[in-house]
C-alpha cells in the first residue's frame, strides 16, 4: 500500500478545478452543444444542449450506456465532428465553426487520442508509432525521435521501443498509444474506453498511468461505460439520451494503490 499522505496528495492533485486563476480560460467551454443526425422523417438528437466547462488539469470521465451521447460528445470535443448548434471553445479558441482542414491541425496540436483498440500501425515499431503524429506537423526527424523516446520513457517503454505491436502485450500497446497521444504536448488527452480491451489488472495499470500523468498536469477526458473506471477520475459527467444529466465531482480512487504492488 502506498503511504497515506501520498494518496492524499494525489487526490488533491487530480482534482482541483477551482485552483486556477480566475483569468485563465477554461480548457473546454461548451454551451448548448448539440449534434443532430437526420434519420428517416425525424432527427436523432445524439447530443442535445450540453453545457460543460472543464478547467486545465482536470481528469474527467464521460459516462453513460451506449447511445447516451458520450461518444458523440467525445467526437465533438476531439474536433472529429462539428456541432449542429451550440458553441465549443477549446483553450480559448472557438473551434466549433472551423473548416475541416483547420480542425485537423487543431487535433494535431491540442489533442491526443487514446482508443479502446489502441490503433497502432501494425508494421511499425513503437518508436515509429509514437513519432508518426509529429510527421504531420513538420517536426524535423531528429527532434521527432528525441521526443518519441522521451514520451516512451514517460510510459515506461523505452526499452521496448524497437518492438512492433505484435511483440507487445495489450497493456504495453496501450502505453505506446498513450505515448503517441502525449508526444505533441497536447492540451487534452481524449481516451475512448481505454481499458475496454484489457484485463482488469492491466486496465488498472493504465488508469494508474493516467493518474500519474494527470498529477503532472495533463488534462484527461475519458469516455467509459464502466463506473469502476470513472471512479479513478476526479469528476464524472453522466450522459443519458443525448443529455448531460449529472456532473459530479468526487475524490479519485488511487489506481496504483489498487494494483497491490508495493512501490519502491
Amino acid at each position, binding site marked *: 500500500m502506498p503511504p497515506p499522505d501520498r494518496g492524499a496528495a494525489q487526490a488533491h492533485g487530480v482534482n482541483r478545478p477551482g485552483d486556477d486563476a480566475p483569468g485563465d480560460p477554461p480548457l473546454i467551454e461548451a454551451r448548448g452543444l448539440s449534434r443532430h443526425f437526420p434519420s428517416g422523417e425525424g432527427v436523432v438528437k445524439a447530443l442535445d444542449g450540453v453545457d460543460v466547462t472543464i478547467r486545465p488539469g482536470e481528469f474527467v470521465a464521460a459516462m453513460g450506456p451506449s447511445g447516451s451521447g458520450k461518444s458523440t460528445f467525445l467526437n465533438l470535443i476531439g474536433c472529429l465532428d462539428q456541432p449542429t448548434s451550440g458553441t465549443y471553445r477549446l483553450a480559448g479558441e472557438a473551434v466549433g465553426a472551423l473548416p475541416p482542414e483547420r480542425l485537423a491541425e487543431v487535433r494535431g496540436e491540442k489533442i491526443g487520442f487514446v482508443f479502446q483498440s489502441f490503433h497502432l500501425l501494425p508494421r511499425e515499431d513503437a518508436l515509429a508509432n509514437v513519432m508518426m503524429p509529429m510527421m504531420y506537423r513538420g517536426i524535423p526527424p531528429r527532434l521527432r525521435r528525441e521526443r518519441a523516446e522521451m514520451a516512451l520513457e514517460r510510459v515506461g517503454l523505452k526499452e521496448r521501443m524497437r518492438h512492433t505491436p505484435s511483440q507487445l502485450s495489450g497493456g504495453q500497446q496501450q502505453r505506446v498509444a498513450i505515448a503517441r497521444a502525449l508526444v505533441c*504536448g497536447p492540451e487534452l488527452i481524449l481516451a475512448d474506453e481505454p481499458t475496454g480491451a484489457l484485463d482488469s489488472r492491466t486496465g488498472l*495499470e493504465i488508469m*494508474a498511468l493516467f493518474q500519474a500523468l494527470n498529477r503532472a*498536469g495533463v488534462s484527461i477526458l475519458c469516455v467509459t461505460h464502466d463506473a469502476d473506471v470513472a471512479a479513478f477520475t476526479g469528476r464524472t459527467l453522466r450522459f443519458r439520451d443525448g443529455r448531460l444529466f449529472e456532473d459530479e465531482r468526487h475524490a479519485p480512487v488511487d489506481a496504483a494503490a489498487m494494483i497491490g504492488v508495493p512501490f519502491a
Partner: protein
Amino acid sequence: MNVIGRAGIQQAPTPLPPLPPGRRAGLTFAEAGAAALGALAANKLRAALTALGIFIGVAAVIVTVAVGAGARQQVLSQIQSLGANLLLVWGANVRMGGVSLGAGQRPNMSWDDAQAIPREIAAVEAAAGTIRQQMQVVNGNQNWSTWVNGTDSAWFTAHEWVVAEGRFFSEEEASGGRKVALLGATVAENLFGEDNPVGREIRIRATPFEVIGVLGRKGQNPMGQDQDDVVVMPYWTARRSVMGASRAFARSVGSISVKVAEGEDMAAVEEELRAFFRQRHRVAANEPDTVNIRNLSEIAATRDASARTLSLLLAAVAAVSLLVGGIGVMNIMLVSVTERTKEIGLRLAVGARRADILRQFLLEAVLLALLGGAAGVAVGIGLAYAMSNFGGWPVLIQWDAVALAVGVSGLTGLFFGYWPARRAASLDPIQALRHE
C-alpha cells in the same frame, strides 16, 4: 513487476516540454514517399502482381518500338546502300514483229546516251552506263558464279561504293580497256578466304584480270539481293574481253545509274530524263517510252511506311496493356484503402490533413506504377538486346521511347491512383476509426 506503477510514481512524469512549431504543416514528399514504400513493402507479392500489368506494358512498348525502329533503320540503311538520289534507267519492253521481248531484253541504250545525260540535264551529277552478266570467276581451284559489271567510274559515285582495300580503276585503265577488276566482299571471301586479293589474279572466261580493289560491304538491298556478290571492271574492258561484243551492240549498255545532285527534285529530273530519251531515241508522240526509270528510294520509302505502320500498331497494343495495368493499379489501391480504413482514421485523428492522406495514397499508386515501369524498362531493354544478339533481329533502342514509357507509367499511376486516393482522403475519421 510493475513497471508502470514504478515509472508513474518514481518519474512522476512531467509533461513533455512544449513542441516547437513545425517548419510547415503536412508531410514532405520524402516522408509521404517513405510511407508509401513501407505500405508497398508490407504487401510485396500483391504489389508485384499489380505492377506486373504496367511492367508488361512498358516492356512491350520498349521492345516493339525497338524492333520497329530497328526495321526502319535497316530500311534506311538499305536506301543509303543503294545510293541516295539515284534513278535507275533500263530498257523498256521491246516489241519485235508483235512479240514482246520483255524489259531490258534487247539493249536499246548506248554508252553515249549515258555520257550525254550529265551534259544535257544540269541536275544530274553523274551517270554511269553499265552492262552486267552472270559469269564464273576463278582463282586457282576456287570458283564462284557472280554478276560481272562493266561500268564507268561514275558508277562508284552513283551507288556510293567505297573501297575496303586497294583502289577504284583510273580513267586510263577505263578508257584503255585494261584488265583490272574490283571484287565485292562476298566474291573476295569466296575466292580468297582470309587472304587479301589486291594484286592477285582472277580468271573470267579464261581471261586473267588483276584485282586492284575490294569494295566495302553493303549487305542486302531492299529486294533481298546480296549487293556484295559482284565483280566490277571498266566498261570497255568488259566489252572487249568478256562480254563478246557483237557489232550491233558494240556500244550498248543494259542500264544507266543516274545520280541526281543533292537538293534537286527527283520527280522533275525523272521527267527530264524521260523527255531526253524520247528525243534521243526519236520516239513518236503516240509511241510508248523506250526506257523504264525507277526511283529505288521510293520502293524503300514504301517499305519504310509499312514498317512504321507495323510499329504504330504494336505501340497501340502496348498502350492497351498499359491501360489494363493502370486499371489493375486502381483496383488494388481501392482494396488497399478499404483495408487501411482504420489507419487512415488514426492518421486523420492525430492531425493528418486530407491533403496528406491524398498525397500518401497517390504517391503509393505512382510508386507502384513506376516500379512496374522501371522493371519493364530493364526487361524490355534486356529483351531487345537478346533479340538482336541471339535472334538476329535488327533492333534499335529508342531512348526517348524508354523515357516516354516510364513517364506514361508514372502518369498511369497518377491517373488511376487519384480516385482511390481521393476516396481515402474523404473518409470520415469517426467512421474510419470505428471500421473493422
